[in-house]
């Protein structure tokens, strides 16, 4: 059995964490070939070759593959698909954009956000915002799978897989890149951070979010937000933790002024230690918290920032 794994490559840079987690998830399925595709992807391929468990690395460089436009990237994967039983990727927005297109072109179903591998045909995945876990068996000849990164540990490095170049992409002409607006930040990435500090509607305003950010910076943590905080304009959408945002599983998750709606819990309940600070003692967040503190966040958060 052979696996083709689409590595997460953005502007020529490998996202090691997401890719290495998908390698861990794929190991039980067979030999893993990692595909690094992009306008430039050679450096990413070199780095991917060090992931333990990567048997081979393919590199495809072509301007048409830049910015991960779905049409050209999907065509490339389909052209390589013949040799593989599983086509997989970490469940990033890029992979979710590309893989269903690949699946339809191969006339197979998509398996999105898989959180567990039972065997080569059988997978577990959360449905209903993580309120149920479904085990499904695929009858398709090829399986197209995205892996929920929060459910797997990253594979180590130290390997030295061979890197092979494969032919470029066809230019689809269907879409073109215009611009990226990347949030500039020195903080760790939300989905791979060891500690996440999140604020909810209780924080009250965009200015007050500085309290959350200060605590996060003291801890070297990423900043998250509930959907209520994002919808209220207190925080940008790419901070959103939850079913409709990012799914995280850090060692420590600190929820501040977050009530704990089902949709938020779906995005963070796999965190190792959960701390909740909320002035409402009835808030559902306390039911999933390891440590709960009923307090006014405007007093408790600065005090916590001071004492840590």
């Amino acid at each position, binding site marked *: 059995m052979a696996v083709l794994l689409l590595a997460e490559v953005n502007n020529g840079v490998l996202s090691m964490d997401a890719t290495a987690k998908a390698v861990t998830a794929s190991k039980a399925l067979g030999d893993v070939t990692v595909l690094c595709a992009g306008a430039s992807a050679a450096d990413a391929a070199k780095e991917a070759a060090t992931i333990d468990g990567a048997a081979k690395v393919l590199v495809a460089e072509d301007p048409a593959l830049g910015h991960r436009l*779905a*049409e050209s990237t*999907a065509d490339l994967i389909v052209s390589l698909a013949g040799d593989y039983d599983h086509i997989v990727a970490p469940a990033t*927005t890029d992979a979710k954009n*590309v893989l*269903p*297109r690949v*699946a*339809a*072109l191969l006339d*197979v*179903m998509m398996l*999105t*956000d898989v959180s567990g591998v039972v065997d080569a045909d*059988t997978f577990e*995945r*959360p*449905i*209903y*915002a*993580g*309120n*149920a*876990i*479904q*085990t*499904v*068996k*695929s*009858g398709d000849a090829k399986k197209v799978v995205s892996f929920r990164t929060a459910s797997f540990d990253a594979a180590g490095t130290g390997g030295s897989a061979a890197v092979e170049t494969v032919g470029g992409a066809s230019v*689809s002409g*269907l*879409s*073109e*890149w*215009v*611009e*990226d607006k990347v*949030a500039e930040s020195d903080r760790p*990435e939300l*989905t791979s951070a060891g*500690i996440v500090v999140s604020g909810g509607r209780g924080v009250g305003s965009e200015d007050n979010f500085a309290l959350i950010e200060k605590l996060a910076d003291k*801890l070297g943590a990423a900043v998250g937000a509930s*959907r209520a905080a994002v919808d209220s304009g207190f925080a940008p*959408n*790419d901070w959103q933790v939850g*079913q*409709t945002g990012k799914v995280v599983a850090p060692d*420590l998750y600190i929820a501040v002024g977050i009530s704990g709606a*089902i949709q938020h819990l779906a995005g963070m*309940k796999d965190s190792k*230690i*959960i701390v909740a600070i909320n002035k409402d003692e009835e808030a559902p967040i306390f*039911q999933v918290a390891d*440590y*709960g*503190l009923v307090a006014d966040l405007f007093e408790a958060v600065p005090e*916590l920032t001071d*004492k*840590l």
Partner: protein
Amino acid sequence: MKVLVPVKRVIDYNVKVRVKADGSGVDLANVKMSMNPFDEIAVEEAIRLKEAGKAEEVVAVSIGVKQAQETLRTALAMGADRAILVVAADDVHQDIEPLAVAKILAKVVEEEQPGLVLCGKQAIDNDMNATGQMLSAILGWSQATFASEVGIDGDSAVVTREVDGGLQTIKVKMPTVVSVDLRLNEPRYASLPNIMKAKKKPLDEKTAADYGVDVTPRLTVVKTSAPAERAAGEMVGSVDELVAKLKEKGAV
């Protein structure tokens, strides 16, 4: 230009989901059902395009059980002009997979010839996030997923997409499939007069067989289980106590 908007009937997003004790699925009997929230955003965007003079007609389509006609009536009450119901299942517990839905939609597109398909990025029941991309692939069209801004300009559309770490803007060739994300707009509520008017708008009923599409699932559900519960934690009385606990655990 005609805009086609696929809508799905799903469990209402405010309803607490309960897994059936026998592990056969989620309990949907006597549960409030509504339009998938992402699809509501797609309907709203289509109506706004019409109001802005960029679209002439908005056609809503739903694939599933017969009861999905309620979902279509909601779309009509919001402002869609007509609706197509494709009955593909008898039992409310039978979910039609995105691949089969995309194949049926491709046939509807052949018939209707829309210039744009606007769909939700995912349904909140199976959370598959696949139908739009699959439809686009089958049609050989361009795609723009997770849209937070859509601008139609002649034979192309400029779409801003919500991606990990920020936003990406792309320009796609029309006709195209756009899947919409949460921040694109805030869907309107249907007014009572519009709900009454919607009852008179045309709603065609078809079956999957009419389109020659086999909806047999490719994935067999082995079991459905409730997620692992977290053990109850403890309440701390002060910040000092919290800091002490976290230090004890080596968390900070």
